[in-house]
């Protein structure tokens, strides 16, 4: 499985990469801002995208909207330190499927990622049936 990790912080990307490998993902591409994320999402097929919120050049929510406009149905998890319910709701409306709040315990984050992938897979099967 292939993931795209979007965060302007190298530490944040590094931490998340170790977590996604625990969740069964085998390849992790990286983007450092929303513009790069949209460009990579348009060129590649990812099984899941992890999007930071507070980034230079293009904020995470704008990148999510742009990716959804590409008609990409890839599950997107918002990864953010911004624990505000209003912003999380805004993200879900923009097309985010789930979220991870920083800082996170690796085991809990891996479980949440697996849960998101499983749910997305079930939804996809239901749509095909």
């Amino acid at each position, binding site marked *: 499985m292939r993931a795209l990790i979007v965060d302007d912080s190298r530490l944040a990307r590094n931490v998340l990469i170790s977590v996604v490998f625990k969740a069964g993902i085998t390849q992790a591409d990286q983007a450092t801002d929303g513009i790069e994320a949209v460009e990579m999402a348009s060129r590649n097929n990812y099984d899941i995208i992890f999007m930071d919120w507070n980034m230079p050049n293009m904020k995470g929510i704008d990148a999510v909207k742009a990716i959804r406009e590409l008609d990409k149905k890839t599950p997107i998890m918002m990864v953010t*330190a*911004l624990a505000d319910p209003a912003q999380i709701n805004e993200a879900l409306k923009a097309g985010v499927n789930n979220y991870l709040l920083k800082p996170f315990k690796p085991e809990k984050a891996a479980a949440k990622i697996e849960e998101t992938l499983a749910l997305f897979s079930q939804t996809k099967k239901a749509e095909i049936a």
Partner: protein
Amino acid sequence: MRPAAMKMGDNDYFTTVRLLQNSSNSIKAEYINPFIESVKNLFETMLNCQVVREDIALTTRIPPTLDIVALIGLSGCIRGNVAMAFPVKTALAMVSRAYRSQIVVVDSMVIDAVAEFVNIVAGGAQASLNQDVKVPVDLTIPTVIRGNRFQMEYPSMAAWIEVPFSSELGPFTIRISIHKKDNN
């Protein structure tokens, strides 16, 4: 009422309250606790480390005693700045713990990590600050300042609440200068 998280001696507490009341910035004590809790959460969750909060103080300038300062701005109805200041040794210990690898030099990786730490602390406090406000708080991209010969002063006479911490990774301080805009 004394906030539960502010465990100070009586004299310190009342002195700080007087300073807060006299401060032109009207920093409220309830704006400080979310940052203290967020620091604890960062250290316990991400760095597997307990922290101990030391005595809180009010200051009008950041003295040139700490080597790395990570600054993040808040805007919206509650606005101001939050700074995390570390001696180099503490910063290296924190980043080494985060990367699970020995980091011995302050380079771009360390600067990036320190910026992420202040981003997490401010983000963690944001939800509490956004309660009961009309315009939500937004965060700037963090700025990191290096060196031990600089002095930061605030011409607007803003006051900073200084919250020192100690930990097994070393001492550090967070400084908070925020206030709520009227009618928000």
